[in-house]
Structures are given as C-alpha cells and as structure tokens.
C-alpha cells in the first residue's frame, strides 16, 4: 500500500500566494514546492480569485496541517517560516486558505464554491 493514503485539494486566496507557497515548501518534499500555487485562475461567486493545487499526501501531512509547522526539511531551509505560519493560521477560516480531503479534486473545488475563471481568447 502506498504511503500516500489521502488526497488533499487546496485553494489559496490571491493575496496569500506567497504565504501559501512558503507553507507548501515546508510541508512538501521539494525545494520546487515554493512554486506550488502559480496562477489564480479559479474564483468564488464573488469574483475573488484563488490559486489551487491537489496532491496525494501521507497521513503525517494531515497532522502537520492542524496548526504547528513541522521542522524544516533540508530542502526548505530557505522557506520563510513566518509567512508559512501566517498561511497555516488561516486554514479553513473564512477568507483564508481552504483545504478539502477527498479523492475527487474537481468535486472538492466545487464544494468550496469555486469555478474556473472564464477563459477569454484574445
């Protein structure tokens, strides 16, 4: 059985991209995880923009996502822990970063009331 037993789908308000990417780097497995949230191309019914990501995770991730940042792995020594903590402190709070645990990421985003920003070809 894979160690990656859960799937999480995360939506980050546009204003929190830097915080969320530092959190992703510390919680993730690669220095490149600082680029996890790249584009805010999803929106809620109010037109507020979100960047999204979905990934399989190990059980330890869910525990670590409950409030206290884990120690930084070697790949994340350059990550900003203060910014990351700011993101973590807003987890699943109104206006904050939202995370859904479930197998279907598109369904998870729908449950958060998010839809793709309409794509306009110029």
């Amino acid at each position, binding site marked *: 059985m*894979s160690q990656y037993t859960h799937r999480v789908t*995360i939506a980050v308000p546009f204003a929190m991209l830097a915080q969320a990417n530092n959190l*992703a780097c510390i919680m993730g497995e*690669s220095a490149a995880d600082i680029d*996890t949230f790249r584009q805010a191309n999803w929106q809620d019914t109010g037109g507020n923009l979100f960047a*999204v990501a979905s*990934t399989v995770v190990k059980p330890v991730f869910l525990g670590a996502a409950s409030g206290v940042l884990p120690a930084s792995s070697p790949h994340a020594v350059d990550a900003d822990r203060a910014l990351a903590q700011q993101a973590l402190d807003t987890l699943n709070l109104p206006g904050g970063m939202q995370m859904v645990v479930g197998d279907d*990421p*598109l369904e998870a985003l729908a449950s958060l009331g998010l839809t793709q920003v309409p*794509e306009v070809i110029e």
Partner: protein
Amino acid sequence: MPFMSVYQRPFTSPAVRGGVLGRSGLGAFWSRWLPSSLFAAGEQGAWYDPSDLSSLFQDSAGTIPVTTAGDPVGRMLDKSGRGNHATQTVSASRPTYQTDGTLRWLAFDGVDDHLVTTQNNPFVYTDPLFIFAGFNKTGAFKAFETLYGSATNTGATNTGQSIALQVAAGKLSTDVWAPGGIRVDTPLLVAGTPYVVGVTATNWSTHKNAGGALRTNGAQGTSVAYGGAQTGLTAVPAYLGVFHPTALASSFYTGAMFGVIAARRSISAPETLSLESYLAKKSGVTL
C-alpha cells in the same frame, strides 16, 4: 536476421495490411512488436510507458522508485533511448501511478498535474511527426484538455506556436487554439471510455491543410481545420497532461494515461497498426 524476416512477413500480406489478420489472427505476432523499433535509426522522439514500473520514480531526480498504486510520479523515463525523460519537481503537480491489477496508468487530477520533458520537444516545424496516446478520461471534457503538448502560448492569447494532442471538449485535435490545427468534430469522445488516439503529419507546418490525419481506435477520423496560421515551432519543452506550465485551467487533463509515443519521423501504415495495437493492449481498448 532470420527472426526478423519471420516477423516482417505478415506486413507483406494484403490481408494483414488491411489489418484483418493483424488484429485477430495474429495477436501473438502483434504482441511481440515494440515501439523501440520506431526509434531504431536514432529518430528523435519519446516513448512513455507507465506500465513499466522500472521507468517510474516518485521524485524528479529518479532516486525513489514507484512501487505501489497511489505513489506520485515525479519522473517517467523515456524508453525511446533519446533521453526525453518527463519530470515534475513540484510535489503537488505530480500525477500518481495506478493499476487495477491488469492495466497500469498515470492518473492526472485535472487541477495541476503534469510532467515536463527534460529536453525541448523533439520536433522540427517542417518535418513529419506522429504522436499517439492511450487514455481514459474521467469526468466532463474541458475546453482545452491536453494529453501531450508543447507551446509558447498559454492559450489565453491568439498568438504563439504550439503542437499538441488534445481532447479538447471531447474533440480530438492537434493544436492549442491559436496557431491552428485540425480536429475531429464528430463523433465526440466519450468520458469513461478507453481510447487510442493519434496524429500523423507529413509536415507539421502544413498539416492543417494537407498531410495531417487524426486517428481514433485504429480508424482515421474526418477532420476539419481550425484556428489561425502556424508560424513556427519554438524549441521549448513538451508536457504530458497540459500544453504549457501556466496554461488555462481547462487544459489540465483529468484521467488515466496509458502511454504516449511520439517521434519526429513519418510512420507507415503497418507501423501505425502495430503502434495502435500495442497501445490498445496497454489501454484496454479492443480495436
């Protein structure tokens, strides 16, 4: 070599060229054909085979092997011998390896999963090429959903250069919207159904007007031209599961990918049949 002459003999038979014997009476023969023969003369291209666990790694550096269903895939080796390996450095953007005990595939989540080739795409604008893939789509088709692509444009502007094998809105197509391509408008592809699809072109720069063909489950479709004019093909990486790293959200593929084989060369009718039969077996498709 003697065994080569035995294996090649069926191709000289009109019945086999028509595919009849090739797909029914000579199943054992077809099963021995391998895509490596498409690269035997050093042709540029790539062969991605998720059914081969030895080609899959959890990390992009290729140090942690994929062993079990559910493992993320951060590196998939190119089995063509050309070194066009596909990687993903961002943990959350890695597809996962899956199996039902018979078939094996990469599962793309449709949100951010994709792989990036370590070298630029293997194509030349005015050269022939082919791209084939086996897939089974999950959920509704999105507007620009892409199996394999390489583009300078993100899809948001009507400029740029690109090449792609897309299942956009259920229509098999060859290109990101802007530079133009060909697509099959009917019949639409059906989600939850396995397919082997492909594009062949005698010259990519002119494929929209002549020499381009789209194939679905062993048959050539009726294609129409669309979009603007091709202007070139820039040397940028190729992608599995999207056509550009910051592409439109609707371009991320959702579903199973059983394999992708692409090369900068023409492909003969017998080779096409062999390739489709090979991918069909990998994809659970009955041709």
